[in-house]
C-alpha cells in the first residue's frame, strides 16, 4: 500500500521560501523534511510527517522544473508555464544566484576553469557546503562571467537587469574584480579573512582607485586600476626616503598620540617600520605582480607587526587617522591628493582586515 502518485498544482505556483532555501542548499527530500519538522511547521497547521513529505516533494519537483528557467533569468519573466508573481520571481532569482560566503571565499582569486570544478568536492568538504550547492554556485559563476565577458561596451549599460542586480548584490563585482587582478587570497596568512572582508576591500579599491572613480562621466564599469594614479603613487616614496620628512612626520604623529593610548610606546618605536611598509606598498603597485600581493603585503607589513604589539582596533584607528592627517601638515610634502586617495583605501581596508 503506497501513494503512487501525489501532485498538487496551483494556478499561482506555490513556493515556500524555506523549502526553496533547503533545496538550494542541496538537502535531499528526507533531510529537508527533518529540518522542517525541527523547525516546527508541523504544529503550525496540525500537519503530520506524511503531509510534510508530500509537500516537500511537490515543492522540490516544482523547483526542478523551474531550474531550467532560472538559468536564463530573463526567460522567467515571460515564460507561460508557471504563473509566478513578479516579486516571487525576483526572490527566486536572487536566492538562486546567491552565494555562500564560505564557498566564495574558497573560489576567490582562483581561475574559473574546469580545473576548479574538480575541486568542488574538496571545497564542499572544507566548507560544509553540499556538493549540489557548490555545483550550482560554481555554474552560476560561469554563467554570469560568460554573460559579462561577452558584453561589449559599457558594462553596466548592457548588462541584463537581472545580472546587474547580481553585480550590485555585492558578490559578483568583487569576484569579478578579484578574478581580473588575480589577487592572492589563498595564502595561509590570509586565511583568517572572510569573503566579506575581501568584498569590502574590493569595493574600496573599485570606488577609489579605478579610472571611473575619478571621472563620474565614465560609464564603463572598467575594473582596471587607474594607471596614472599608480604611477603617481611612486612620488609618495619621499615620505620615507627623505629623512627629515620622516622624522617630522613621526614627531607630529607622536605628539598627537601621546597619552591617548596604552600602545603609545610601541607605536613610537615602530613608526618608521610601519610607515616604510605602507609607502613601499604604494610605490610597488605599478607592478602587476605586486598588485596581486596587495593583501598579503598589507598583512605582513602592517597588520602582523601591530598585532604582535597587541594594538586594539581603536589604537589602529587612532594611529592611522593621525598618520594620514599629519602628512597634510608636512609643508614640504606636495602630494596631498594622491596621498588621500591612497590612504582612504588603505585605512578602510586595514580597519576591515584588522580583527581583534
Amino acid at each position, binding site marked *: 500500500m503506497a501513494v503512487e502518485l501525489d501532485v498538487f498544482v*496551483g494556478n499561482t505556483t506555490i513556493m515556500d521560501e524555506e523549502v526553496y532555501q533547503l533545496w538550494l542548499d542541496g538537502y535531499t527530500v528526507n533531510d529537508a523534511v527533518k529540518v522542517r519538522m525541527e523547525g516546527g511547521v508541523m504544529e503550525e497547521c496540525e500537519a503530520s510527517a506524511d503531509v510534510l513529505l508530500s509537500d516537500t516533494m511537490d515543492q522540490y519537483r516544482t523547483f526542478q522544473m523551474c531550474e531550467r528557467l532560472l538559468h536564463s533569468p530573463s526567460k522567467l519573466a515571460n515564460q507561460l508555464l508557471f504563473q509566478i508573481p513578479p*516579486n516571487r520571481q*525576483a526572490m527566486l532569482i536572487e536566492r538562486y544566484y546567491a552565494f555562500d560566503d564560505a564557498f566564495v571565499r574558497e573560489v576567490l582569486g582562483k581561475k574559473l576553469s574546469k580545473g576548479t570544478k574538480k575541486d568542488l568536492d574538496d571545497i564542499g568538504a572544507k566548507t560544509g557546503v553540499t556538493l549540489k550547492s557548490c555545483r550550482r554556485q560554481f555554474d552560476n559563476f560561469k554563467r554570469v562571467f560568460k554573460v559579462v565577458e561577452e558584453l561589449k561596451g559599457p558594462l553596466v549599460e548592457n548588462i541584463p537587469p537581472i545580472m546587474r542586480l547580481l553585480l550590485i548584490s555585492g558578490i559578483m563585482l568583487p569576484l569579478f574584480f578579484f578574478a581580473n587582478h588575480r589577487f592572492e587570497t589563498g595564502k595561509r596568512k590570509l586565511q583568517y579573512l572572510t569573503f566579506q572582508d575581501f568584498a569590502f576591500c574590493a569595493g574600496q579599491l573599485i570606488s577609489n582607485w579605478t579610472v571611473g572613480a575619478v571621472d563620474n562621466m565614465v560609464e564603463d564599469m572598467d575594473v582596471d586600476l587607474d594607471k596614472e594614479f599608480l604611477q603617481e603613487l611612486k612620488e609618495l616614496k619621499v615620505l620615507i626616503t627623505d629623512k627629515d620628512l620622516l622624522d617630522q612626520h613621526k614627531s607630529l604623529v607622536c605628539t598627537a598620540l601621546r597619552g591617548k593610548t596604552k600602545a603609545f610606546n610601541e607605536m613610537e618605536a615602530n613608526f618608521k617600520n610601519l610607515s616604510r611598509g605602507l609607502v613601499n606598498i604604494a610605490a610597488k603597485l605599478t607592478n602587476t605582480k605586486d598588485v596581486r600581493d596587495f593583501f598579503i603585503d598589507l598583512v605582513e607589513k602592517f597588520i602582523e607587526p601591530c598585532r604582535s604589539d597587541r594594538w586594539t582596533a581603536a589604537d589602529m584607528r587612532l594611529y592611522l587617522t593621525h598618520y594620514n592627517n599629519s602628512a597634510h601638515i608636512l609643508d614640504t610634502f606636495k602630494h596631498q591628493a594622491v596621498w588621500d586617495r591612497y590612504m582612504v583605501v588603505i585605512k578602510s581596508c586595514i580597519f576591515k582586515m584588522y580583527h581583534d
Partner: protein
Amino acid sequence: MPGKLKVKIVAGRHLPVMDRASDLTDAFVEVKFGNTTFKTDVFPKSLNPQWNSEWFKFEVDDEDLQDEPLQVTVLDHDTYSANDAIGKVYIDIDPLLCSEAASVISGWFPIYDTIHGIRGEINVLVKVELFNDLNRFRQSSCGVKFFCTTSIPRCYRAAMVHGFVEELVVNEDPEYQWIDRIRSPRASNEARQRLISLMSGELQRKIGLKVLEMGGNAVVGYLQCFDLEGESGLVVRAIGTACTLDKLSSGSAPNTNTHMHPNTAPASNACNSPSKDGKEPVFGEDLTSSSGPPTPFRALPTTSSSPPPFSPSKPCSRQSSSSDTDLSLTPKTGMGSGGSVGKEAGPLKTLLRQQTQTALEQREFPFFTLTSFPPGFLLHVGGVVSARSVKLLDRIHNPALGNTRSYKLLDWNSVTADEPETRDAWWEEIRQEIKSHAKALGCHGVVGYSESTSICEEVCILSASGTAAILNPRYMREGCLDIGITDHRFEEPSPPSCGFCHIPYDELNMPFPAQLTYCYHCRRQKVPDVLFTTINLPQEAAVTGKGCLIQARLCRLKKKAQGEVNATAISNLLPFMEYELHTQLMNKLKLRSMNALFGLHIQISVGENMLLGLASATGVYLTALPAPGGIQIAGKTPGDLSNEHHILTIQKRINDTIAKNKELYQINPPKLFALDPEVFCGINMELTEEVVGSPIPEPRQRSRLFRSHSESSDELSELDLSHGKKDAFVLEIDDTDAVEDIHSLLTDAPTPTGFYSCNTEIMPGIYSWTSGVQMFTSVRVFRLSNANLTNQGLNKIFTDLCENLLKSFYFKLRSMIPCCLCQLNFAVAVPEEELIQVAVTAVAMTFDKDQAQEKPADKSTTKGGSETEEQLQFPMELCADASSANTQPSSKISGVPESTNVSSRAASVDYGSFADRCSTWLELLRLKAHTIRRGSVKTSRRTQSLAHSVSSLEHCSPLPEGRSRSLRSNRSFRGSPVTVVKMTPLSFLPGTRIIKYLGIINMFFIRETTSLREEGGVSGFLHTFIAEVFAMVRAHVAALGGNAVVSYSMKECMLMENPNKNQAQCLINVSGDAVICVRETDQEPNPSMANIGQTCASGTDGAT
C-alpha cells in the same frame, strides 16, 4: 460563404533546439483550417523567429467555423529529410463568432507536443469576418452564447429560461482504429485531440441549433463530457439550460442577482409594465397560501420497494417495474396536491399550480443544470432525485451477446454502438426516471441537474441527479420578460429566506417517511426535518452559523466478472452503496448538528474488483428547519456490562463531538425558534426566562419574541405535537461493522483553525471575501498492495486517502489563513485493478476575519455567554448604532446575520494595516531601483551600496506576506508581459466585477511519454502536464483579451501508466468561461455577497 477567417503568424520565442549542429532551429509554420493549409516562410537559424506573415485567409461556411479548430503547426525545416514537427496549437475560434464575446484572438500560445509537452511559444493573430445569413435551414448556430457557469452569468439578465437542452455525438476512437498499429503515438494522440475538438465543436453547434429553435440565445450551465468507451467508441455528450439572456448595461450591473431589501427593491425597479403590476399581486397572494406544502427531502421516493427507505436515489438497475411504480405514484401525488388545495387555499392555488405545470410539462424534461438562481425563481425544494443505470457497452461486430433475456440494462436491440440513438435512449430512460421521481415529490422541475458516467471495461454506470423543485412559473412564461427583479417578490407569502424549505408535496401523501414541523422561521408552513439538495445555498436563505464539507466514503469489493454477470453484480451492489452513503451522510450531518446538505454530489466509480462511492456535500444549519436530534448509541445485547460501558464511552465521545462542532461552526439557533413547539405553546414563563437569560440585548429580543409569537399564535392549534419531540437518531451496535462505522464517523479530523471548507460556491456564513484566490488541482493515486482486503480495510484506506488530501491542502495553503476552500470537487476513479485515484480541483479564498479584530471587547463578552461571536455581535452592533437599528426593516429576522453594516467597518481596519504593508513594499521597491541606478554611475557612493550589499540583499528580498503584492510591482519589474490570469471554479472572483464574457474554454489534451523515469516518474509527469494545461488555458484566455477563467473545472483526468515500460499517458479535459473582470471600485453590492464593499477597498491586494 458566410465567413472569412484571417490568421497572421507573428513570431515565436523560446523554441527548442532542433538542429544539434548549430544549436538553432529553422522554423516555419503551417496554418490549417478544414482542408486548407497555408505556410509561412522558413525563418532560418533562430530560436526566436519573426515571421510576420501575411494574413492567411480562409473562406468557409459558418458551420465549419463552429466545428473546426484552427490548427497551427510549427515545424523545423530540414533540407534533406522530412521536416520535424516542433508542436501544435489548436485554437477554438468559436468565441469570435459571437458578437458579444471576443473580437480578436491575439497573443502568445504555448506550442504543445503530445510527447514533449510545451516547446516554446508562438504569437498568433486571428480574426473572423462573418456575413449575415438569414437562411432558415442553416445548420450553424453562430451567435448562441455558451456558459459553463451554472447560474445566470453576471452582467446578464435572464429574460426567459427555456429549459433543458442535450445532445450527444458518437465516433470511433482513433486510438482503437486499425491504423493505430502502424502510426506513431504522436500521430495517434493528435488524431484523437483533433477528433474530440471537432466533435465538441459539432456538439456545441447542434445544441446551439436546439436553443435557437426554442427561441433562446444562450446556454447556461453547459456541461460537456467525454465517455471513452474503448473499442466501442467515443461519446461526447452535453447538457445545458437554454435561456434568453439580456445584457445589462455596464452601469446598472447585475441587478438580477442582487440581494436587495424588500423595501428598496420596488423602488429601483421602475420599468415594470403596468399590466404586470396589476397582475402580480394576485399571484403573490395565491402563492401565499398555496405554495404551502413544500418540503425538503430526506429520503427519496421509495418507489421501488426493495431498497431501504433511505436510499436517496433509486439505483435503477434492472426492474423495469421501478419506473412503472413511479408512474403509478404520479397520479396519486397529483390528487394529493388537489386535496391540499381544497384545504388550504382554494381555487387560486390550483390555478397557479396548473399554470406552472403546464408551462413546464410542455417540455419533455423540465430540467435545469443551474445550481444558483435569481431570487424568487425557486419556490420550493423537494429533495434530491437521482437515478443510475448499469449498461453493457456492446462491442462493434460482436452481436454474440445479443441473445440473453430482455434485460433492461442491456440494449440488445439497438444495432451498433456507433449510433448515437443507443446512447440517447439510455439517457432518455434515466431522465424519465428522474422526472417521475420529481413528480413523486410533488415537484414539476429538477434543478441542479447533472449527468455522469463511470466506465470499466465494457460496463458503464450512467448516473443522473438533481433536486426536485417547484419553480416560479413567471420565468417560464412567454412574453413575460421582466422577471429580473420583481417588486412583489418579497411580498410573496413565503419569505424568501425560508420559502424554499417548505415541502412541495402533500402532507397527507408523503412520498417517503419524514417528520414535518412548522417552519421555524415563518411558522406558517411545514418543513421536513432534513433537506438534501444538489444546488447551491440560495443567497436569501436564512442560515445559522457556518457550513462545512461533509463527505461519505465507501468501498465495496466485488468479484471480478465479465459481461452480463458483472453488470448484474454491480447493479445489485448499487442500492446498498447508496443506502450506506446516505446513512453516513446523515450521521455526519447530525454529528455536526446541522440539518441540510447543499451541493450534494454522489459519485460511484466502478473498477474491476471494487466499487467506490464518494458523496460530498456542504452541511449547513437552516434556520427554518428544526434542530437535529443527537445520535444515540444502543447496544443490542443488554446485560453485558463491559459492552455497556463501551457504549457509554462512545456515546460520550459522540456527544462531546457534537458539542464541539456546534461551537466550531457557531451553530446556535436563535433561542426562540430552537424551542420545542410544546414548550413554545405551553409555558410562557419559560419564554421570559429565556429572554432574561439570553445575552442578546433585551429590548430588541423582546420585541422580536413578541412579534413572532403573535405571528405564529394563530397557527398554534395546527401544530402537530407528536413531531415536536426532537428525535435522537439511534445507532445500534450489534456487530463489529457498526463499531467500525462509528469509529469512522468519529475519525474525520476537524479542519484546522483558520480554515473552512465546502463544496458549494461559497461558504454559508462567510460573507467578507477578500481577493486572495488560489485555484489548484491535486491528484493522488494509491496502490493497494494486498489483494486480500476486506471492505472495512478498503474503507479505511479510502477514507484516509481523502482525509490526507484535505490535510495536505490545509498545510499548503496555510499562508492564506483565514481562508476557505470552496467548490471542493473530488473525482474518484479506479484506473487499474489495485489503484485508487482521487483528483481534486478547488479554490482557496481568503476572507476577513470579520469583527473579531475590531472589537476585542465584544469578544470577551461573547466568551462569557455561551452565544457565538456572530450572534452576539450583530445585535450589539445594531444597538450601539441607533440609526442603523432604526432602519432595520421590521420584518427582518434578527437571527439572520445582518452582515452588511458590520463588514464595512471591519474591513476598514484590515485595509489600513494592509496599506501600511503595501507602502513599505513599494518603498522597498523604490529603494531597490535607486540602488540599481546608483550602481550604474561610478561614484564613491557605490562604496556604500557595496558595503551594504549583503544586508540589502536580505532586505530587498520580497516580503514574506504573500498577499501584499500590488499590481504596481508588476510594472516596476522589467518585462513581465505575461498577463496574470486568475482561475476559479466559482462563477465569480471576489473583489471583482465581471464586465464581459469572452466565450467558453473547452480544451482536451493528451500527453504521453516514453521516458517516465527521466521525467520524474508518474508524479513528475503529471505535475508537468497539469502545469502545462493551466498554462495553455491561461494563454488562450489572455489571447481572447481576458484576465480570468470562472467556472473552471477539470472534467477528466485519465492517467494510464506502465512503469515497467517506462511509459505513461494522460488525458485531461478542462472547461470554463473566459472573462474580463475589473476590480470593484464602486460601492455596488456584489451579487454573490451582501457586502463586498470592503473587498474593493482592498483592491490593491492582488494576490493571484
